[in-house]
């Protein structure tokens, strides 16, 4: 059975165990469909001021002078903040990189220089949103334009410097060399050489922009941020030292978040500005980012150029290895970077068995928006390279891309499989996923479809994308970039308690943005305690004061099903054990004699002897004198920190296991191209997913749909394009066209479940795998255009004009030489 079945809705009252693996109703939905969710912009406070940032119109310029006097004269204006103040009141954010990147100074507002269009130079606070903007227009800024750098390869030349303190535009560079590349070349029959492949800039552009309402408590020196930061732990680590305060002075509160996809991890610069304003003006201040601001000055996905790609291949299509130069463009400031310079290595060989890989990796700054992790972070770019290589090699050697994949895929029987750089693919069956995808899309009828399209003047193309979604990071990988960094492993927390009236209350360290954590956590708890998910109250959102959290807490990197639910499982098992001890104490039995079912603790041998959870909660919390001495340590409030089994990677060889789980995605697409215009339609689409044990199939399927839609957008129209002056040409949803309902192709979904041997529930993190769609579309276009000059599809984003351009110049940039 490959088709995902229609959702099964469990009756509200049903209390049989075995909820994991079923589609229980989402706890989040009721408030959201009634318009009763609470997003940060819904929070109001008496006397709050609205913040508007004054932003640079220049991509690169000296800030000669900032004059806020006229703004301050306007009635209803509460105050302003400038870069000069920021430079005095804060320290630069810490940088993760080694030099030169380590020397970059990044502040909440531009200090002395602006480095991208939209770079904030000042902030104004007023009594209404409109007034704040009026006042912002009165702030006079004198700029002295500097030459803009919008090309990563030009940036490498260091003729113009973005950051004088660093002395170079290079943030980080290093060579990754695994196996024996030169040996592979010698062994190969053919070397396929690709001059250039370009992974374009885009981002998931969550529909809710970023923002916060910030209150400052003068008495305690504490800031409270009602916000949508998706990773408060790391946010605080950036903000506290900059603000010269302690971590516990920063309280992050979120309930509902309107999507994040990684784009809400790097909000610390804006939030620090808000904190300074709340303290300076002694009133709550509120900032709501605009769509245009999010596009010009928040978080893009990494742009990456691959040069001089060489692939060593046998005549039969056996791949031996590849080498290339990768140039990663992180925009004006590294922020979360240079982590992207290693994250890709989680999937170094992609889905394939080649053992000899050499990548010369350099990351540079340019006068574009800073980047931040974006769904599929850094792996997506690298997997696009590996998938492009497969289809280009197949095309050049006249082989079938299906055969080349099957010949080179890591095989099910090889699992767990150690990659050339020491990562361990936990489980999966790529070839089987491919077969399912081919079946779903009717691959056997391909040639007939081609002829049918030709009869209508169209070019039909077929393409495959097979990718991995690596989840649960070993943060030790950061030491492969910077040996000084003291990060390794990973952790996540949950607490589960039984209250006096029998309520089961769960708090999570994670910060959900639509992934249904309240629901899936309740499923896990219900199965262990023998009750209904409806009896389990999972606190909505995250409050860093009241939700127990650990250093790596947050919602990112495809890991909740492993780390978050691992913590829930651990805490619930502790609570179950305590409940059994209490019941055993009351019955004068052994904990082992007690079973938990139907919301009761009872004697397995005599179910009539039962205490409802309410009774257990009442005894421990309010009537504990009746308890035997040896059970009085019970709190019924259990905390568990899940820590995945990781070792420190080998810094010398850049070798080690960087992630715990690998979910599989194999997608297949059919496109029809109009050769006269370059316009194309995606006429059929199949997505097969394997994320191990599925806790909630409906939620898994929803993640597949969404990730696929985002990647289809990135493959067709979504691109952050700049002109030579550094103006962003797609700053809004007019010119940055995301898929609308009519743009989406029919989607056929299939799945298999290859349980992970390494995780508490056999589940794998998932949700970031949609990059497969970019590869599938690029491959399908390549296939469709073959009869018309066989051009090389060398961009990841291929809008109509790009396809038309391929058809005009038939640009190749690829050659095959005998080794």
């Amino acid at each position, binding site marked *: 059975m490959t088709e995902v079945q229609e959702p099964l809705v469990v009756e509200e009252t049903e209390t049989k165990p075995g909820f994991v693996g079923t589609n229980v109703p989402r706890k989040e939905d009721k408030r959201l469909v009634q318009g009763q969710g609470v997003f940060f912009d819904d929070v109001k406070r008496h006397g709050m001021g609205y913040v508007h940032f004054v932003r640079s*119109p*220049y*991509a690169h310029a000296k800030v000669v002078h900032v004059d806020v006097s006229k703004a301050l004269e306007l009635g209803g204006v509460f105050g302003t903040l400038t870069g000069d103040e920021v430079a005095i009141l804060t320290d630069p954010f810490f940088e993760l990189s080694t030099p030169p990147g380590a020397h970059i100074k990044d502040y909440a507002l531009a200090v002395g220089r602006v480095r991208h*269009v939209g770079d904030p130079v000042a902030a104004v606070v007023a009594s209404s949103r409109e007034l704040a903007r009026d006042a912002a*227009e009165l702030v006079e800024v004198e700029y002295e*334009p500097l030459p803009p750098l919008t090309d990563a390869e030009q940036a490498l030349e260091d003729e113009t410097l973005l950051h004088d303190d660093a002395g170079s535009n290079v943030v980080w560079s290093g060579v990754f060399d695994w196996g024996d590349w030169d040996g592979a070349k010698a062994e190969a029959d053919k070397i396929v050489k690709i001059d250039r492949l370009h992974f374009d800039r885009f981002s998931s552009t969550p529909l809710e922009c970023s923002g916060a309402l910030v209150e400052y408590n003068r008495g305690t020196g504490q800031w409270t941020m009602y916000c949508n930061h998706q990773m408060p732990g790391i946010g605080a680590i950036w903000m506290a030292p900059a603000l010269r305060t302690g971590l516990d002075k920063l309280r992050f509160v979120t309930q509902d978040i309107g999507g994040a996809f990684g784009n809400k991890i790097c909000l610390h610069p804006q939030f620090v500005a808000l904190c300074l304003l709340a303290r300076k003006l002694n009133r709550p201040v509120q900032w709501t980012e605009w769509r*245009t601001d999010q596009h*010009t000055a928040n978080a893009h996905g990494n742009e990456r150029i691959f040069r001089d790609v060489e692939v060593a291949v046998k005549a039969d299509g056996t791949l031996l290895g590849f080498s290339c130069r990768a140039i990663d463009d992180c925009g004006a400031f590294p922020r979360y970077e240079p982590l992207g310079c290693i994250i890709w290595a989680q999937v170094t060989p992609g889905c394939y068995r080649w053992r000899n890989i050499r990548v010369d990796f350099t990351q540079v700054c340019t006068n574009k928006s800073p980047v931040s992790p974006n769904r599929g972070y850094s792996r997506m770019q690298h997997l696009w390279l590996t998938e492009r290589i497969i289809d280009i090699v197949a095309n050049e050697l006249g082989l079938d891309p299906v055969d080349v994949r099957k010949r080179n895929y890591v095989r099910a029987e090889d699992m767990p499989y150690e990659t050339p750089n020491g990562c361990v693919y936990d489980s999966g069956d790529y070839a089987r996923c491919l077969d399912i995808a081919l079946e779903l899309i009717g691959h056997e009828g391909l040639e007939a479809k081609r002829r049918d399209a030709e009869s209508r003047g169209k070019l039909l193309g077929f393409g495959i994308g097979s990718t991995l979604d690596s989840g649960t990071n070993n943060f030790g990988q950061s030491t492969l970039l910077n040996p000084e960094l003291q990060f390794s492993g990973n952790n996540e927390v949950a607490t589960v308690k039984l209250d006096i009236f029998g309520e089961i209350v769960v708090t999570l360290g994670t910060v959900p943005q639509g992934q249904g954590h309240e629901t899936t956590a309740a499923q896990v708890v219900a199965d262990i305690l023998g009750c209904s998910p409806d009896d389990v109250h999972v606190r909505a959102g995250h409050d860093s004061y009241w939700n127990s959290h650990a250093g790596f807490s947050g919602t990112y990197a495809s890991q909740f099903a492993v780390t978050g639910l691992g913590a829930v499982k651990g805490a619930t098992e502790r609570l179950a054990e305590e409940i059994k001890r209490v019941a055993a104490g009351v019955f004068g039995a052994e904990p082992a004699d007690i079973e938990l079912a139907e919301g009761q603790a009872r004697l397995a041998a005599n179910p009539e002897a039962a205490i409802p959870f309410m009774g257990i909660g009442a005894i421990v919390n309010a009537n504990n004198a009746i308890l035997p001495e040896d059970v009085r340590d019970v709190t019924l409030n259990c905390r568990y920190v899940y820590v995945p089994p990781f070792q420190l990677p080998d810094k010398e060889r850049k070798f080690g296991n960087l992630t715990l789980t690998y979910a599989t995605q194999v997608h297949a697409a059919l496109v029809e191209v109009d050769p006269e215009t370059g316009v194309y339609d995606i006429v059929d689409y199949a997505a097969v997913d394997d994320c191990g044990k599925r806790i909630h199939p409906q939620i898994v399927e929803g993640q597949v749909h969404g990730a696929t839609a985002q990647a289809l957008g990135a493959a067709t129209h979504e691109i952050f394009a700049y002109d030579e*002056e550094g*103006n*962003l*040409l797609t*700053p*809004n949803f*007019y*010119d940055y066209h995301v898929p609308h309902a009519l743009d989406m192709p029919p989607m056929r979904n299939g799945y298999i479940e290859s349980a992970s041997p390494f995780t508490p529930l056999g589940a794998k993190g998932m949700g970031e795998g949609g990059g497969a769609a970019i590869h599938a579309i690029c491959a399908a276009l390549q296939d469709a255009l073959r009869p018309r000059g066989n051009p090389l599809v060398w961009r990841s984003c291929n809008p109509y004009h790009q396809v038309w351009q391929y058809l005009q110049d038939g640009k190749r940039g690829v050659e095959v030489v005998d080794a």
Partner: protein
Amino acid sequence: MRVEGTRTFSAPRATVWQVLNDPERLAKTMPGVESFDVRDERNWRANVKIPLGLGGLRMSIDFTKIEEREPEFAKLAAKGNGVGAIMNMETAFHLSEGAAGGTDMKWEADVKIAGPVGSMGQRVLQPIVNQQVGQVLNALDRQVQEASAE
């Protein structure tokens, strides 16, 4: 964005040169000029409201004559400042004796527009610039006629 072209005036080169170097006359060639003041013979400032149908884009533009070789070459820099838009333009004129005592003018302009208008209005900016340039040239023609009539 670069725009360039040629224009023939039925007036002697000296007259065309004179018009191109007379701020008062030049002012009359620019669209939507609300005020114009000459600081010295090389620097002028104009406050303009570029007529966009939806309500005009206000800008103050500083002109600086950065190069001239009488009577055949002049180069002008313009730096405009308005809400939502910053304009930088360099424009050069080459004058040569044309047929029948007329004057041929070869001109090129490099217009750079930054700010929200610069990025949001891409698809409309080029047509607008082309159109404004056309109007400026027609107005210039009229000024040349007037000047040669005097």
